């Protein structure tokens, strides 16, 4: 009797914890919806596509922030993906075991650096490097034909934000990709080698093909992190609420505008607008994460079936 009582108590407590997550999520959505309802009523759907941001006359539009968030995150993904996959393949297929552990540990350490440190490094080191060395290369070649790469660069802007974000999401993508590549059955590798494939051909046909949707999931989890990242981006993106013409122009993201303006947002509509941007950001991140879970789930199921 006594034992059963303890079990039931445990079960009840466990249920409370489990449900608390759902309750918290629900409460968050509800609170943000309530907080933003004033702005939702006033601006409607047009809020998403308007580019005006004027706190004095209280004209608000979210498009520059949505654009800045999407472009900086995609840029980060484009830079980070090849590097991360390279790291993962190297660690699993090429590196000797002792080296694998050291590098693996260092990559995870990279994920532990606080984002404000990345931001400071961005202002004082990366910004000047991009202004002096990297941007001129693009501006003098591609920039001559494509306005999207035109100058001048002052070291802060959407490109710098993309690079900082890329560095921040490499640990995420690389370590998940490594896990995914490690579960590729050795039989696959051996079969490819037995058919006369070189090591690169084996990696390309047997390993990467087998793990591609898992890697895609890793990319999307990285993208989710890039979308929500606030502090380091705020410090290097330039905070200009305009849709940028060039990749070196200052821009703005949804997370940054909340961090910057929430403290001093005094009027009701201003505050409500910022909460609506938070709501949008929440929705985007949630969707991206659900998509990623779904992809990773498909891969792991595929592997189980193969066994």
């Amino acid at each position, binding site marked *: 009797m006594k034992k059963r009582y303890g079990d039931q108590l*445990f079960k009840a407590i466990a249920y409370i914890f489990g449900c608390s997550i759902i309750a918290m999520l629900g409460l968050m959505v509800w609170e943000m919806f309530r907080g933003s309802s004033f702005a939702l009523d006033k601006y409607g759907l047009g809020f998403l596509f308007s580019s005006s941001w004027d*706190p004095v006359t209280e004209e608000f539009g979210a498009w520059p922030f949505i654009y800045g968030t999407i472009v900086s995150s995609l840029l980060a993904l484009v830079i980070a993906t090849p590097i991360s996959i390279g790291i993962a393949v190297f660690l699993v297929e090429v590196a000797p075991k002792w080296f694998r552990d050291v590098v693996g540990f260092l990559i995870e350490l990279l994920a532990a650096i606080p984002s404000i440190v990345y931001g400071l490094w961005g202002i004082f080191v990366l*910004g000047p490097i991009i202004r002096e060395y990297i941007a001129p290369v693009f501006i003098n070649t591609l920039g001559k034909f494509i306005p999207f790469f035109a100058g*001048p660069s002052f*070291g802060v802007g959407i490109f710098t934000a993309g690079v900082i974000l890329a560095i921040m999401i490499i640990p995420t993508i690389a370590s998940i990709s490594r896990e995914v590549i490690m579960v590729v059955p050795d039989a696959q590798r051996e079969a490819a080698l037995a058919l006369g494939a070189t090591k690169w051909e084996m990696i390309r046909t047997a390993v990467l093909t087998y793990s591609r949707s898992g890697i895609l999931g890793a990319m999307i989890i990285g993208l989710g992190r890039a979308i929500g990242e606030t502090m380091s981006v705020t410090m290097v993106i330039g905070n*200009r609420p305009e849709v940028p013409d060039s990749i070196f122009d200052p821009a703005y993201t949804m997370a940054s505008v909340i961090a*910057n*303006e929430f403290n*001093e947002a005094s009027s009701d509509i201003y505050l409500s607008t910022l909460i609506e941007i938070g709501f949008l950001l929440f929705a985007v991140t949630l969707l991206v994460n659900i998509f990623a879970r779904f992809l990773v789930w498909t891969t792991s199921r595929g592997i189980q079936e193969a066994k």
Partner: protein
Amino acid sequence: MKLKKIGVLLFALVMMFSLAACGSSSTSLKPEGDKEAGASGQQKPSGEAGLLNGAGSSFVNPLFSKMFNEYSKEHTDVKVNYQAIGSGGGIKQLTAKTVDFAASDAPMKEDEIKAAGGNVLHIPVTLGGVAIAYNLEGVKDLKLTPANIADIYSGKVKKWNDPQIAANNKGVKLPDTDIFPVHRSDGSGTSHIFTTYLNKAAADKWPKEKVGKSIKWDNVGTGAKGNEGVAGQVQNTPGSIGYIELAYVIQNNMTAAQVQNKDGQFVAPSLDSVTAAAQGGLANVPEDLKIELNDQPGKDSYPIVGTTWALVPEDLGMDKAKAEKMLTMLQWTVTDGQKYASDLQYAPLPKELQDKCVAQLKKVKVDGQPVLK
């Protein structure tokens, strides 16, 4: 076995408490839209009589920390807890009656005072200059007119060797490079002072729609977060210019431009020239002490100067003993406490203004009775 059980129970308890704690703190972020807190009547801020809670301007925070620390050494029964959450945040907390006093770099607007329910007294506590720092190799004494600054920040003057800048800088070799203006990206009292100044001194180039704590900037330059962000950006970007609190510029040894004042003189920012501006402004101090110190007369007056006010409701909803402690403390802040200002690069209040502040504090009432004698 038993030990394990106890451990599990303890763990469960800890988790429950932490959950409960999360739940109760989440209510603080209520939007201003629902006025339940205000409607439920005279809510008295909690806490014992000796603990005073304040919130607001981050500009005044270093000075307040020093002052309150010194004050508590002399008056061991009083502790002041000041949170530098920004001027707007301070006003919000004062309206919600979660703090005893607030501090702001901009005077409260009419509708904000209305929302607070009853008049709110503005008591100047310190003066601050806003310096125009720049990064231009080889140029030490840059002179700028208000029109120059307005043109630079609205993108009309784009190069350093523009004839309009060169006109005030005879004999200075200005380079043919782009100007990169840096402004604050976060809502800030410094932006309020700077934009108010431009509107006052160059009204034809800087309209009223561009005055505020955060405004719609023209499509030039960049926004950086906080004084440290603007300072960092200016120090790092050749050709840049930015407006920064004077204390920051002095502490970081940055080069700042001389700005033309109302008398046509070019004055470098310093504690002396800021105090001179306050002297110049004393002639016409309004009754409610919402003084505007930008662009004051006097040949030594630095033109870009702002005030930080302590905000106290005229009708205090707290018990008399506590009210007395708070008002005595604030009285000390605007008089004896001013001696700590210069060390921290704040300009002390002139004597005449101090007297007016004390007179203002004497207006505060509890239940219709004045508190300070």
